[in-house]
């Protein structure tokens, strides 16, 4: 892992671009800012082009002879397939509204990380090969030759974008750099240019059902570890089911929740909540991934991975699907799943068996977000909660980019948190809700070798957390995203030591008073509950 400079050094950022024009400034690959190139075996698993051993640090990336043709042909094809792409290539006026809206620009000061310029990397090639002025006048019309260096530049910068869509909130025409990045990455994938950190999970998910490559028995045993902990904490033994036919609900969550803190605590939260409700639900080891790294690869790959959820729901004969806390998973479910793999006519419109509420907003997709589900439970008074158990926590909430700008789930998690915690503080207005900053590690950037990039990209988020940390003593950063739970702890340790990270359902389960539970002295992390230390049952 590359050494990351100290926070004091990293936070000295120069936003002033050089005098030299960007087309004349060659790209320098900086250690710590990019990922390893993908291994051949991952590409082979999913049948992707050009599998070979290569390194992103090498001069020669071992591209096929006709790489240029492939790229231009791919651009042409996508111009015809995506109105967004064609339009966004044409209508940017370079007003600069987006320039300082990207966390990667704010964290690096690298002008190519301004969304407008990241888009221009592609647009310049588009102009040169696909517009009349560009074909005739070339550079004068903003056109640029597609060269090997341009390709490398694309790779470097399209993997410095977390597809968070923050730029598109401020753009007067709604130009969404995520769309351009996604198409850029899709094109790069035609040449076998992916990162190991993305291609690995994709291959795992394809073959084994989840990004982490957990096999069925491992999923079960991981959950059993959690059940042991739950028994220690509550005295209650929970017995969830796996791949059970005839269950009412299929529960799908990102596999990150099955493995590694603090995601596992969130997972324990689901288990405890569903047990307390007596919910007729099942886990699946086959569709054991809510997240979708295929989405960071190509639309087709994303669809191939996503297909399993409906396929499994159909096989098990469930009535509807409940989805766990995850960011890009929910952008995919909200905006893509039904279009790709629907119609879900074998399912029913979701109705909460506990409250009888009908989730009309999910009447086509038939998949409900667990925060919607739980908010409804609390509103209908179905949960007995003791928020004082979270009194040692001062909580703030980080809106994940995808659920914020690709869905708009803002109030549900806040409503839950306010009901299970007594101390909740919002971060500054410019950093939450639709203007939220990315954790800096989204869209497949949460590898180890690009740690400096992640710390830089997460700087604006950390900076806002630090604000409430100093002002209100906030010590817990809640979120509804598995990548956040994986990435933010590192970010907090680096920028704001003393702030821990949690999923919303961990907080729920901490406050949840369960039937027949013993008096709790520990929270879900097996840490003593303040004020309850002496009350331990012997």
């Amino acid at each position, binding site marked *: 892992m590359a050494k990351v400079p100290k926070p004091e050094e990293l936070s000295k950022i120069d936003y002033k671009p050089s005098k030299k024009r960007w087309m004349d400034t060659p790209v320098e690959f900086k250690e710590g800012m990019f990922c390893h190139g993908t291994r051949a075996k991952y590409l082979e698993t999913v049948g992707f082009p050009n599998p070979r051993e290569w390194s992103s640090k090498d001069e020669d990336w071992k591209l096929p002879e006709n790489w240029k043709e492939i790229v231009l042909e791919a651009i042409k094809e996508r111009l015809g397939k995506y109105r967004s792409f064609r339009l966004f290539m044409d209508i940017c006026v370079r007003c600069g509204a987006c320039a300082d809206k990207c966390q990667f620009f704010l964290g690096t000061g690298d002008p190519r990380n301004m969304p407008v310029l990241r888009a221009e990397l592609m647009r310049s090639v588009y102009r040169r090969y696909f517009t009349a002025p560009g074909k005739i006048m070339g550079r004068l019309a903003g056109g640029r030759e597609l060269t090997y260096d341009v390709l490398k530049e694309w790779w470097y910068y399209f993997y410095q974008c977390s597809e968070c869509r923050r730029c598109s909130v401020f753009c007067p025409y709604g130009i969404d750099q995520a769309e351009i990045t996604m198409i850029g990455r899709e094109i790069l994938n035609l040449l076998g240019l992916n990162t190991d950190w993305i291609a690995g999970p994709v291959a795992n998910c394809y073959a084994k059902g989840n990004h982490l490559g957990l096999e069925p*028995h491992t999923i079960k045993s991981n959950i059993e570890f959690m059940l042991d902990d739950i028994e220690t904490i509550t005295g209650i033994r929970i017995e969830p089911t796996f791949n059970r036919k005839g269950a009412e609900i299929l529960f799908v969550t990102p596999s990150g929740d099955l493995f590694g803190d603090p995601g596992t605590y969130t997972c324990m939260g689901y288990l405890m909540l569903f047990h307390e409700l007596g919910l007729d639900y099942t886990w699946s080891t086959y569709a054991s991934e809510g997240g979708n790294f295929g989405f960071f690869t190509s639309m087709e790959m994303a669809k191939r991975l996503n297909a399993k959820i409906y396929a499994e729901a159909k096989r098990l004969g469930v009535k509807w699907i409940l989805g766990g806390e995850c960011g890009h998973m929910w952008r995919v479910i909200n905006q893509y799943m039904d279009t790709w793999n629907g119609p879900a006519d074998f399912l029913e419109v979701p109705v909460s068996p506990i409250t009888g509420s009908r989730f009309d907003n999910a009447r086509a997709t038939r998949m409900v977000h667990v925060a919607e589900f739980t908010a409804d439970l609390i509103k209908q008074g179905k949960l007995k909660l003791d928020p004082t158990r979270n009194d040692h926590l001062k909580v703030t909430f980080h809106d994940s980019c995808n659920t914020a700008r690709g869905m708009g789930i803002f109030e549900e998690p806040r409503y839950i948190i306010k009901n299970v915690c007594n101390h909740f503080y919002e971060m500054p207005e410019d950093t939450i809700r639709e203007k939220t900053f990315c954790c800096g590690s989204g869209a497949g950037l949460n590898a180890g070798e690009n740690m400096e990039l992640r710390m830089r990209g997460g700087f604006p988020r950390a900076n806002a957390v630090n604000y409430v940390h100093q002002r209100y003593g906030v010590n817990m950063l809640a979120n509804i995203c598995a990548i956040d739970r994986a990435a933010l702890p590192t970010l907090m340790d680096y920028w704001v030591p003393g702030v821990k990270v949690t999923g919303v359902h961990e907080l729920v389960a901490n406050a949840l008073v369960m039937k027949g539970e013993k008096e709790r002295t520990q929270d879900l992390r097996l840490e003593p509950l303040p004020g309850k230390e002496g009350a331990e049952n012997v």
Partner: protein
Amino acid sequence: MGALFSFVAVILLILLAYVGVEVAGMQPIFGIVIPYAAVLTFIAGVIYRVIKWGRSPIPFHIPTTCGQQKSLPWIKQNKLENPSSSTGVIGRMALEVFLFRSLFRLSKSELRDGRLAYGSDKWLWLAGMAFHWSFLIVLLRHIRFFATPVPSYLNLLESLDGFLQVGVPRLFMTGIILLLAVTYLLLRRFYIPQVRYISLTSDYIPLFLIMAVASTGILMRYFFKVDIVGVKELTMGLVSFNPTIPKGIGVIFYIHIFLISILFAYFPFSKLVHMGGVFLSPTRNLANNSRMVRHINPWNYPVKFHSYEEYEEEFRKKMKDAGIPVEKE
């Protein structure tokens, strides 16, 4: 360099019109042929562009949601920033097109002692609004050259625009605002380092061109007066397809109409098409209802995915050992 090139190009255009009319006496070319060609290019070009966009489908439903979604009945949805109905979308688009909603969000970030601070920054919004609205009013005011009798709403527009009653002919505020706004938009390209860095030649051309159009218009109205009746005779001739060149119209008029013609003809091939494009932007003009209504991707095709059967085939023993139910024992 882009700025200099654009500036010189516009100066050359002015000279071209000047020489063409004053020296070569090519009034019919500059007053009739070029304006006709420009308008034709403009109309055909814009339609071509829009149709070209329209021929690419919207495969996925990708609105950028900027407010609370519609979910549980007791949670207040933000119907304008995250619409789930057509009415909401129309409202959102209207805010965007008429009031530049997104630009209004603009903030400025500043790094002080390792901390980021955000402050409101409405200058670009203000200049953008001033520029586009005054341009529109100026354009509408020109209808008086293309209609007899002039529609009555134009009287109202002119009286509002000239309500200061300064000078003779009465000063129209929009002309001045237009010129000021376009100057601001140009200056920010010079002085804001990031904006300067991203600016291309094609960003400067329209600015200088519009500046020249506005300046010649203002000069003509207040300083180098031309025979206005003659001008109207010419413009009416154009729109009634009976083109004539009345004698004695000052050269500044021909420069003005030539620059406008260039602007119109340039429009469809430049970033100026954002005028039409904003209406088609899928991150703005779609309702966030994709969990309620199924959307069809016209090029959707079946894909190969790892089926459950293949999965069980591979893991059957492990599944059985772990007590996970299987299809085939």
